[in-house]
């Protein structure tokens, strides 16, 4: 990705608040994003909400990159009503590595984290009700992982619940 460094007031504030923590601020196609370690992501979200007026969690999602050593990329998209600005926070985590839930910071994260858990199998610690949301409760596997095939993902479930051979 041909991103350029993001220079401005907000990156300076972030570097002051989180010194020497491997935090980078970049711009790609005019969109700002912050890359940080998973341990401090929740703190950054908290900091942005309380100190920088980013009062709205637009979205929370994940990307699976199984070839990388830390396979999952978590993406938090925040918006600020007073500043009319959007910022993304990205972090990397490995398989079976839990992340801190941000439900105490934004209520909206409740369903969004459940969906990420449902689709990718990422566990959020401190989530009040972490269970599947879109897929059936008894489903095996996590559909949006790259190793999950688009056809016949859980034959066992399909056979026992729908009485047919495959999902196709």
């Amino acid at each position, binding site marked *: 990705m041909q991103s350029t460094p993001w220079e401005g007031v907000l990156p300076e504030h972030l570097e002051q608040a989180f010194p020497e923590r491997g935090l980078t601020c970049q711009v790609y196609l005019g969109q700002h994003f912050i890359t940080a370690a998973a341990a401090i992501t929740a703190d950054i979200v908290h900091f942005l909400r309380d100190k920088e007026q980013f009062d709205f969690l*637009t979205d929370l999602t994940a990307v699976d990159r199984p070839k990388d050593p830390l396979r999952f990329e978590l993406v938090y998209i925040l918006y600020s009503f007073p500043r009319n600005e959007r910022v993304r926070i990205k972090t990397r985590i490995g398989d079976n590595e839990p992340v801190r839930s941000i439900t105490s910071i934004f*209520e909206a994260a409740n369903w969004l984290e459940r969906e990420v858990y449902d689709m990718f199998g990422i566990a959020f610690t401190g989530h009040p009700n972490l269970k599947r949301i879109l897929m059936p409760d008894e489903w095996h596997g996590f559909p949006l992982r790259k190793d999950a095939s*688009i056809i016949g993902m859980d034959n066992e479930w399909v056979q026992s619940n729908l009485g047919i051979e495959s999902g196709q």
Partner: protein
Amino acid sequence: MNDAIPPEGDYLESSELVLNMGPQHPSTHGVLRLVLKLDGERVRDVECVIGYLHRGVEKIAENRTYTMFVPYVDRMDYVAAVSNGLGFCLAVETLISVTAPPRAQTARVILTELNRIASHLLWLGTHALDIGAITPLFYTFREREEILKIFENYCGARLTTHAFRIGGLQYELYDRFEEEVKAFCEYIKPKFDEYDELLTNNRIWIDRLRGIGILKAEDCKRYSVTGPLLRAAGVKWDLRKAQPYSGYEQYDFEIPTRESGDSLDRYGVRMDEMRQSVRIIEQAVERIPTGPILAKVPKVLKPATGEVYVSIEAPKGELGYFIVSDGTIQPYRVRVRPPSFLNLQALEKMAKGALLADVVAIIGTIDIVLGEVDR
């Protein structure tokens, strides 16, 4: 004998009743299932069970090319398919740094605003039906039909239109397009007053909606609620104004707001929004520029490695697409930020303490489409 008489004050104590509402229930607008914990008629707790219409749209996207995926987004919010398509096309255009030509942008605005009116009309009819007013449904569907006819004349489809292409439009506007759109605007304007007469000053309508399902601005922000729900709580925020796209900055229109954030206010906001949409359409149809309708877009789309998040103001709120490209012809990941999904989450807050009959009204005013909630 005395043991059989319960102590005073406990006569009316009832045990908790768990009631399943849906997934096959006419007033849940699709396959939404609610698990309600009732104390008499009072709702003590509510849990939404969703996913009955999950088709794995985001997974399908990873197995299609960018162009092949455009029709799929129409199937999410199927009553506002044009908006879905606009959002996705804009996101891909941002990713490949292409802008649609002015003629295409204006046509997109007209079609999207027509679709906003169609979506709100469908909402109005079904919501009134849920409350018990049967008549408005027939009127709103009659008016909506006129919009669908314009869509049909334009692209051959009425519901899942696939109206836009990445980079602009596929089809040139048909000969009588401007004429028909203008005629429609003249046709619909007095109809809004008819709805006012039917509902706005209707005693039963007001009693059923006022003070029901209040969601204040602070709660809207905590729950990431957008669209008419947010504006009914007094936040003057609309992406068409805040971060204009597709040339919305050229048009003169207002963002309707209300103060208290109850169901009646959401009704008021949507009614005003339809009038504003007519205003936008009337301005746009007068100044459709001439010129090409499709920008230069390569036949095989291979965006450079990177990612973008682009969002638009869909009829139901902020509809966003987060697209990750790995430099191949297929998107590496497409994430849809559905407005209905996040708005529905706030139901659990709104319905607590309400009466069972009011839950129906609250679901109605959120304006959910399950195709979008479940994707």
